[in-house]
């Protein structure tokens, strides 16, 4: 009763057919396909955002309270308690730390979500096909709403303290984009590693909390001793992103080399992350 015969197997692939077969080595990125699925990306982002605001009792208020409380703690402990100063006498420490915190929180949340997206989305991965890259990207984009809310809070705080934003505020989106790409670059690596090694999820929070202390959120980078320590900090892409954000919004010192080195590192990590993700992608549905 078997229909197909040996001749079928030898026939060349006809036109218009998509072929699924075992791929070896590195796969093509096929970013075009991700673009074709942009509506799914939008819906996943929207779902994350709306579920978060629906589930939390405090809803939107949570996005306000969290950075404000952290900023207050930082101001009390580090500024009043330990004497950490803002780099510019005209800039209150509260604004200094909160501006750094905003970028940091966006990075932190986006990267964590991206890192967990495959394990968390295993229900989708095993049941339906879509380019898997959509998942980490939506993990990173979903945080933008929280960021915007906190950004408004920061503007209010600045207004209350009599700090006017400078005209370079128009460049703020560039540094948000850099933060987004940093979160995505690391998130891609971590999400794929998370699938291969399930205990990687415990590594991520540790890594993040360490990274925050080597990013200039709480203290300005010029308070560090010059020389190799500052060089080491320049390797952290968040140093450039946070510095750039403060430059654009508050007219603080231009981060210069920190920004260029950081951006270069992000681009390398991102390219590597994309290829690594694509390489591991084929086993996702079998492993998660």
């Amino acid at each position, binding site marked *: *009763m*078997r*229909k*197909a*015969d040996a001749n*079928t*197997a030898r*026939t060349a*692939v*006809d036109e*218009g*057919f*998509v*072929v*699924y*077969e*075992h*791929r070896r080595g590195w796969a093509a990125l096929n970013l075009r396909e991700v673009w074709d699925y942009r*509506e*799914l990306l*939008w*819906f996943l982002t929207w*779902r994350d955002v*709306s*579920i978060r605001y*629906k*589930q939390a009792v405090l809803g939107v208020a949570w996005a306000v309270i969290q950075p404000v409380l952290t900023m207050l703690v930082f101001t009390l402990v580090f500024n009043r308690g330990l004497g950490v100063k803002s780099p510019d006498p005209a800039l209150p420490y509260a604004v200094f730390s909160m501006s750094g915190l905003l970028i940091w929180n966006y990075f932190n949340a986006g990267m964590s979500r991206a890192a967990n997206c495959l394990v968390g989305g295993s*229900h*989708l*991965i*095993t*049941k*339906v*096909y*879509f380019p898997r890259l959509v998942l980490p990207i939506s993990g990173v984009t979903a945080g933008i709403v929280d960021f915007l809310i906190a950004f408004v809070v920061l503007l209010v705080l600045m207004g209350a303290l009599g700090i006017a934003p400078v005209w370079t505020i128009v460049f703020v989106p560039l540094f948000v984009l850099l933060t987004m790409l940093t979160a995505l670059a690391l998130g891609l690596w971590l999400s794929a590693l998370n699938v291969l*090694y*399930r*205990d*990687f999820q415990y*590594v991520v929070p540790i890594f993040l909390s360490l990274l925050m202390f080597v990013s200039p959120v709480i203290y300005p980078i010029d308070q560090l001793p010059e020389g190799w320590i500052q060089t080491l900090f320049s390797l952290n892409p968040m140093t450039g992103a946070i510095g750039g954000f403060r430059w654009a919004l508050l007219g603080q010192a231009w981060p210069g080399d920190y920004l260029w080195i950081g951006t270069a590192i992000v681009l390398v990590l991102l390219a590597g992350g994309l290829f690594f993700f694509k390489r591991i992608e*084929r*086993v996702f*549905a*079998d492993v998660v």
Partner: protein
Amino acid sequence: MSDDVALRTVDLGKMYRIGGEQEQYRTLRDTLVKMVKKPIERIRHPGAASHVSVDLWALRHIDLEIREGEVVGIIGRNGSGKSTLLKVLSHITEPTEGRAEIRGKVGSLLEVGTGFHKELTGRENIQMNGAILGLSRADIRRKFDDIVAFAGIEKFMDTPVKRYSSGMYVRLAFAVAAHLEPDILLVDEVLAVGDAEFQAKCLNKMGEAASSGRTVLLVSHNMPAVSNLCQRAVLLDGGRLVADGPADEVISTYLQSGRHEGASADLSALPRPHWARPWLKTARIVGPDGHAAGELHMGDDVTVEVTFSSPDGSSIRYPVLVVEIVSARLGRVAGVNSAMTGESVDWPETSRGSIRCRIKRPPLLPGEYMIDVALGGASKTWADLVRGALSFKVLEGDLYGTGQLPGPGYGVFYLDAAFDAAME
């Protein structure tokens, strides 16, 4: 080579590695420990195999060609590779060898409600689910009213689905799926959910898809549905394609082949619903002589014995065993659980055990039957469910002493009846 081929597989195979390194190296910690340990082990036990793993071919040497507009049923026992085939064709997983060639837009429906979220409203879930299944926003907007009408739950569109009954949930989920318009529709056992009336509605909708020239591949245990919807069926067994031809012929080949198997089964690797944890380990039908029996005489007791143990060290309170009898022709016909008979197993807490259920003299007509088993705990919390866990055949017997039996048209139960006639 004709132009109207919609889908073709060439020597398609899918291998899973079970037990060996791939599974063990699931955590970084283990990997690091092994990296250190392994060379030492090698030195200490030079001849020992470095790892033991079993290559399991879920599919192998599948050559299949399906033309546009064909409706093909894929049948076979649990674990025969049906779902794996759909996963490969849906591009969810990659074949290990061979290839699949597909022409046209593929819509796959491996479960109802993929991506549904309980906090979102019916309206929001329609949009989300539609996007996941590949509908564009414009499509969703255009079909929205149809989808809502098909589901028949207009009033609850703005209610979070967590407040839906399970029936409503399934109707909504299926309604979205039914409005996909792919060239090739791949459907896994999704009709097993929902009430009979709604199932019929779904089957109609699928029939429509077929008559509009769409290619449909349908995996199902529901033989009546396969027989009604499909002209052609393929039978998989142990990952191989063993029969391909007119649906009714292949179905009867399948039902014959099941005669001696299915009386006892290892349930651990069988497919389950997503919420189920693999508690159920083995099941068997015990015949009158105490051995596993796949053939019973009419009127014999059907004794089902199930063992279970905790998949993750957790325990279950007051375990409840559900046993359901499913007719290969007509679907589910009867069921019972240990709580409703008042014989709830009186273990306040347990992580393993076995339960035996004796169904006394079920009045089943000759034919093929399957058994679904489920395990639950106190307060109706379900732990596990395996559909089609066992199968058995009821043999013909001379029930009424007349040599006559009710034919298939009479259903699945025989009746012990007495007729009194009076001439007036």
